[in-house]
């Protein structure tokens, strides 16, 4: 079974035309991969469907904008994968 990171990386490659081998756990979706906000919505939709969750993008955006959480917590892919795992676990 593919790891969460591998599934996320495949989704980003499929939706954003980014070569799969350029996507690593350390990649920052925006700063390193150049994913824009619209492309991130496509990625979020694919992640929501793949994992049966709802990424709390509005809450994350607010936390980053208010300086409560560094953007890396949500947009570096190893961290994003960890957040997804937490959401999947919380769903029971």
């Amino acid at each position, binding site marked *: 079974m593919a790891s969460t990171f591998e599934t996320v990386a495949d989704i980003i490659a499929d939706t954003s035309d980014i070569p799969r081998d350029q996507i690593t756990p350390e990649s920052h979706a925006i700063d390193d991969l150049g994913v824009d906000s*619209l492309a991130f*919505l496509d990625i979020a939709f694919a992640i929501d469907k793949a994992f049966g969750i*709802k990424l709390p*993008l509005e809450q994350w955006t607010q936390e980053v904008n208010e300086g409560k959480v560094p953007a890396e917590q949500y947009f570096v892919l190893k961290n994003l994968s960890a957040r997804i795992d937490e959401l999947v676990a919380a769903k029971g």
Partner: protein
Amino acid sequence: MRLEYFQMIDRVALFDEAGERLEAHSTVPLESPVFEGHFPGHPLMPGVLLTETMAQASGYLILGLLRFTHMPFLASVEKAKFRSFVGPGAPLVISAARVHQGSGYAVTRTKIASDGKTICDAELMFRLLPFPDGLSAQMRAQAADIGLVLENA
């Protein structure tokens, strides 16, 4: 339908909150300056306006489901297919169903049929943003005008 004013929905025939779907009816106008160019002597409803029509039906659906808390703005058009032509006077049945409610966005499947025949269909994504000043009241009034009635509103 008043194409020049982007009034694409004549009336909402069904708003099914539990089923997360909406059906609307419109009639392509007999005359419009749009048809002078699209195409001279051969009037056809442009695909871009059919897409706008599907987007508006989807938008009213989302507005109703969210009870006008956010304004849906069209963000992407996927899998759009234009399967047949329609021209002046054609009756349209526009249906939209919400297939996903994300955080700050929503996705619909939508289609237009005329005389039982599918004209076009697409999957649309909307970004959901706070209403710009004054727009909420206008959208509520516009929705009421075309028959979008919410229970317990």
